[in-house]
């Protein structure tokens, strides 16, 4: 049984991204370097043999996924699970959490200018955002951050894949006004 076959079996039996470290747990003889080498061999093999799926780097791991050109065939199949798109407000709140994490609900609301209790609840229910810490101040509010499911949802390999603030028209400031804000809300 060669490394590539074992790695392929593990990838094939998983519906979520796996890191090389995860995959190495499948056999004593494997380590991260050997898994990396096997992944490179599989990637080349899938490309050469024209498989309908490919190896994608997602959420700090790798996952088998169909190539995008098959989407028109798959979209019409009831047995093919689809993930639903996020609403505009949910995307907006998620963008704020992604760039300013860890961040409290009140701060998200200040950036958006609107109540965000509902959209944050939706993001938590969908596993895209979670409480990661407690803030300072009255009641030690829950601070939110993004999950690895967040990266999976957008197909990002790592947080580096997020659009960088310096590529955008204006620069996001650091979250230095937190304490002012809490005074204001108190």
């Amino acid at each position, binding site marked *: 049984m060669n490394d590539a076959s074992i790695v392929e079996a593990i990838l*094939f*039996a*998983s*519906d*979520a991204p796996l890191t090389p470290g995860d995959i190495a747990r499948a056999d004593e003889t494997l380590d991260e370097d050997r898994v990396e080498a096997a992944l490179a061999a599989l990637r080349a093999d899938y490309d050469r043999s024209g498989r309908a799926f490919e190896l*994608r780097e997602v959420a700090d791991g790798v*996952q*088998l*996924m*169909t*190539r*995008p050109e*098959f*989407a028109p065939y*798959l979209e019409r199949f009831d*047995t*093919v*699970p*689809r*993930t639903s*798109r*996020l609403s*505009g*407000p949910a*995307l*907006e709140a*998620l*963008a*704020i959490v*992604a*760039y300013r994490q860890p961040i409290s609900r009140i701060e998200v609301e*200040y*950036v*958006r*200018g*609107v*109540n965000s*209790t509902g959209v944050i609840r939706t993001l938590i229910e969908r596993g895209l955002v979670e409480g990661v810490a*407690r803030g300072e101040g*009255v*009641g*030690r*509010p829950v601070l939110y951050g993004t999950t690895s499911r967040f990266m999976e*949802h*957008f*197909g*990002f390999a790592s947080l580096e*894949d*997020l*659009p960088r*603030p310096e590529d*955008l*028209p*204006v*620069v*996001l*400031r650091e979250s230095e006004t937190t304490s002012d804000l809490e005074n204001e809300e108190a």
Partner: protein
Amino acid sequence: MTSEGLLVVETERFRGPLDLLLHLIRSQDIDIFDIPVARITRQFLAAIEELSANDVDEAGEFLEMAAALVRIKARMLLPGPSGEEDQDPRAELVRRLLEYEQIREIALRLRTAENDRGRRFAKGFVEPRPRTIAGDVPLTVTWDEVMAAAAGVVAPEEREREHRVFTRPVAMREKVDLIVAAVTRARRIEFDRLIAPWKERVHAVMTLLAGLELGRRRVVSLRQRKPFSPLWIYRGSNVGADVSDMAADDADAVPNEMERDS
């Protein structure tokens, strides 16, 4: 003025007051670092008049922004109280608008990434395998770590209870009548007493808006010794004036002399 009057804004289209403000600024090619506050405030107030009464929560958020705009406008008209005020009163609003604009841009890019990801499908069927309990695995956790975590636990009572503030639409008319009645009864009344019966911020906002407009018409005068000291509303010289037009079009009632700040 006429061209501004033709600016038709459907508030339902906007995600909130910042979205609406950005639209007003960007659609008129206004320099965001030099916002003509009086003109934008007037347009903003005109736009939110259309807000349906069903969206009361949303209305509250738009009203808060309206009050913030009015405050900025007032601070631009008045000289700084003790000379320490050298910052442009618009600075924080501009910063928020730019930040919000950037978030909107990022959200668009996230949408693109989501669409791309939606065209790729992961393995649909994964063979069920029995989950074995990982109980035999060595654990490297120390009791010190548990105690450190214990020390960080906060009693729920100390935490702010999340509560939602319910707002209902508050008519400007109601607040105009309230103020006029109060200064007819007595020569002066403290602003805080006028808003004391209600908890919701929208009442304070509407009372302030009504007070500012009545002040412009000299029905009342507003006095405050220094910033953050109590605000008093005094009977004005025009206290008997007809104010029945105020409920309908307060948006147009913004005084002309305030144009100078633009």
